[in-house]
């Protein structure tokens, strides 16, 4: 069972805004460790969309944004587009594991 908890699925219509949550604990997000977000289509390499809580890699549109509050983090996607449909994973370091871990993943469906 993942120590970073994400909702199994979220959905939204084109043009809408969706958020995906990632709930951790005092040994990971709550301890101040950075949170990273990936977009993943099965069978392809994951793509980094947010790193260090809220930074965007070059080429990722500003429709993607990240935030953190306490032991939780969120990925927001505005102006939903069909190509945003994918699985999204959060990642953070956990001091009790002495390593990083991923959340369980959230499937985003664009209606």
């Amino acid at each position, binding site marked *: 069972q993942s120590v970073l908890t994400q909702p199994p699925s979220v959905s939204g219509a084109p043009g809408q805004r969706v958020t995906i949550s990632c709930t951790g604990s005092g040994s990971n997000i709550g301890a101040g460790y950075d949170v990273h977000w990936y977009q993943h289509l099965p069978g392809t390499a994951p*793509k*980094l969309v947010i790193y260090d809580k809220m930074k965007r*890699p070059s080429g990722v549109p500003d429709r993607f944004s990240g935030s953190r509050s306490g032991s939780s983090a969120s990925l927001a996607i505005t102006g939903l587009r069909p190509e945003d449909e994918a699985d999204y*994973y959060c990642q953070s*370091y956990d001091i009790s594991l*002495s*390593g990083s871990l*991923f959340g369980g993943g959230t499937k985003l469906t664009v209606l």
Partner: protein
Amino acid sequence: EVQLVQSGAEVKKAGESLQISCKGSGYDFSKYWIGWVRQVSGKGLEWIGIIYPGDSDIRYSPSFQGHVTISADKSIASAYLQWNSLRASDTARYYCGRTDYGGNLGAFHTWGQGTVVTVSS
């Protein structure tokens, strides 16, 4: 261009050994952490471990420690994931990734294409 190229698909039997590789190009391989990630079909991503090729500092996830070995050869810009005794439950796609910032805590900015490992019982 920074690239990670992984070795090809493998089909093995339970109990056999296996090593898959991840070759870096376009940058100083010894100066960036390389991590390994597993995805079992239909399941989520799992962080296996990470290595700094410059001095072979390695960190493992407790879930994988003892069953896999991570290594690197900076002279040929390659990192490896090895099993001495495969299990059917090791059947998965394995990715390598490079962290650009944050060391072993950092995000994977660059990924390999993945290696499919199939283990029959």
